[in-house]
Structures are given as structure tokens and as C-alpha cells.
């Protein structure tokens, strides 16, 4: 799973397969981070405005 694992090799199958995995994980991670951080700012920024209508 990581380059320091015993089984890791920089060959085409590892690059394609693990590339796909890390790509997916990054999107999921970045997406959630974005949503959470933005929500924190939204809360802090407009105290009692309503956000349901964007």
C-alpha cells in the first residue's frame, strides 16, 4: 500500500493500481476536508443568516 511496504515495486501494475487507489482516496479526502472547512467558515462568517437557499 505504501512504497516502504515489502511488496511495493515501482512497476506498471503498482503504478496503475495504487495510483487509482490514492487518486480515489485523495478525492474523497479533499472533498470532505473542503466541505468541513467551508462549513466551519460558514458558521463563523454569517452568524444568523440562512444558507438553505443558495
Amino acid at each position: 500500500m505504501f512504497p516502504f511496504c515489502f511488496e511495493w515495486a515501482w512497476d506498471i501494475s503498482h503504478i496503475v493500481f495504487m495510483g487509482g487507489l490514492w487518486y480515489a482516496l485523495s478525492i474523497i479526502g479533499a472533498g470532505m476536508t473542503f466541505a468541513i472547512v467551508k462549513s466551519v467558515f460558514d458558521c463563523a462568517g454569517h452568524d444568523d443568516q440562512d444558507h438553505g437557499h443558495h
Partner: protein
Amino acid sequence: MNETPLIPAGVKRCSKWQFSLWMAAATAVLLWGVYAMYLIWYKGLNQTNMNDAYGFALWIWADLAVIALGGGAFFSGFLTYIINKNELKNIINLAVVIGFICYSSALLILAIDVGQPLRAWFIFWHANVHSMLTEVAFCLSCYFAVLTIEFIPLILENPRLDKKPFLHHLSHNMHGIMAIFAATGVFLSFFHQGSLGGVAGVLYGRPFAFREHILIWPFTFFLFTWSAAAYGPCFTILVTKITELITRKKLVKDNVIHLFAKISGWMIITYIIAKTIDTIYWAFVTAPGFGFTLMDFYASSTYNIGLLFAEIVICGFIPGLILITKRGRENSFLLMSAIILGVIGVSLNRWVMVLQVMAVPVFSFNEWYTYMPSWQEVATTVLPVAYGIIVISLAHRYLPVFPQEKELNPID
């Protein structure tokens, strides 16, 4: 202080008493499964009736089946977010809840099924990228994360949770980027549904399972993805209909159901044609190359040729043809028959691709292997059903799962 009610406004729900009774019944079944699960974890897989010839059995079937049936989630996500079939927004919530249930169940079953559950993380840490099972585990876990993310905003729409500003914003922001998650989910689903087919298709020591390849992917890879997309919606519609039956009210408008059914129908028809071609090629080219005739594979009284007929004709062409014709899908009896046949069909396909693979003797001097699950296996397989009923009941009671419910069932 006046608390915001837990139940969404504008809809009617059964009494607390009635709901508790219903939940108690489901929980009782759940606990039976949990007890069996405990036995298996504590005492080991000797609690099952699997053996060295039948290393993959009921659980792997259950795993493949729930994942195929949960395919409605990724396919409706694809249709809604990527090709903008907006009507399906009225059913996608349920598809996501079903997907969440199916995938969490699949992961749980896998955790019960391995001999050393505490080492299950090896599949990630020490992954062998050439194994189809690795691809399954990776995509399954990632896609489960995606489904959880898709489920969260719906949970946050519960009136009491929605009152908290942070959760309100979070729900809103997650909605905003849902298309990205959905696209990732479709990508992941495509691969792991396929890999589950690949699991059987790459077994070149098992002539019943083995299929020729395109690059590294055996035909079953594509057939599994295709069939999950085709039959998954049938299960979503079936659960909708069951929920409507139990709650005694209409929850999704007919045009939504008919659209979903029509798409499902075309997917089934195209899938079953591809499956037929695959079967013919396998029966007349692949298998004879290994010294087998088609009938060698169906020479058992349990596993007879009727299975193949049932899978392709009764649960394939018939529901497909019903669903693609306007009169078929708009007739409620035919629609129900078609979706039930579809659900049976895909489950049957997964059964055959797991259990029959094990049963067919490869040596000319061996008998057919037989296997009967132990009660512990049955209980742990029923567990996800009880769990699913509980989650859907909770979701329906407390969350706005069906956006059209209020309009279809005005309170006054």
C-alpha cells in the same frame, strides 16, 4: 423548552408503540445473527460447514449478491449526477441507503469469512495488486466511504440535526460537491463490481469459472459490472414497493419508477444478450479446450441445466422484455414480477459463479461436492437483512428519504 420534533414535518408516521414493536422483532433476528457471529469469531470457521473443497460458500455468495443488489446506488448516482436524469432524484436517497446497507453488510460478512480476522488489514497493507480480491477490497472500502458521504447529508436533514448550524452548513456543502463524490463512486463501482466477476473468471484451474480475457480482465469482469447496473435498480424499486406496502402509502411517483424500470430493462436486455454470447463462447470454445462439454458442468441433480435456463431466460429475457415495453412496466403485476425475477436472476448468477464453481469436479474421477450451510452461516447471512430492515425503518421514520412523500400524502 420546545424541542424540534425528530420526525420531519408534514409527514405522518406510525405510533411510537407500533414502531418499537416492529424494531424489536427485527432486533431479535439481528441478535441471533450477532450471536452466531460471536461464535464464529470466538471458535473459528469450524463453526461453518465449509470444507477444503468448498472454501467459498454461502457468505461469498451473500457478499456478491448484496453488492450486486446495492448496484442501484452507483447506477442511479451515475444517471442522476453524470447524465442528469433529474427525475431520479426522487429515488436516489433510497438507493443510497440501500447501497450503504449492502456495502456495510458486505464488509461485515468479509470480516466474518476470513480465517484470521485480526489480520484482515494485510489485504491493504501487503496488497498484491495482481489479485482480483485486492481490487475488490480496495474499491469496496473506498466506495463504502463514498456511500457514507452520500448518506450523511440525508441524515443531517433530520429536523433536529438540521437545527445545528454547523451540521446544516455541512449538509449543504456536501450536497454542493456531491457530483464529484458520485463520479468517484461510479469509477470505484465499475472496477469492484467487475473485480468480483474477475474473482471467478481468472481461475484457470476451474474450467467452470474461467473465461477468456481482454487485457487482464476476463469477460465476467464486464458482465458483473453490467449486471449490477442492470439488476441493482430492480432491487431499489422492489424495496420502494415493499416500503410502500408496509407504510400503506405511495412514496415515489409512477413516472420515476417507470423511468428507472425502463433504463433497468434496457440494461437487462443488453446484459443478457452479452451473457448469452459469453455462455455460448464458453460452452463451445473455452470448455472443450479443457476437455469438458457443457453438460459435464450440469451433470448434478442440484446443478442441472435448468439453472442456466432460469438465469438467462426466466430471470433475464423475461424481466428485460417486460421492462422495456411501456405496457409491461406500467402494469403493476408485470412490473412487480419483472423486478422480482430480476432480483432472483442476479442472485442466481452470483450463486452459480460462487457455489457451482466449487461443486463441479475438476478431476475426472471425483464426485460432485455438496455443501449445506450450518445454522451459524445462515444466521450471519440473515443478520444483514435484519440490519437492513432496521436502517431503512429508521431512515424512513426520521429522514426525508422520499422527497415526493409530502406531495403524494397530504396530511389534511
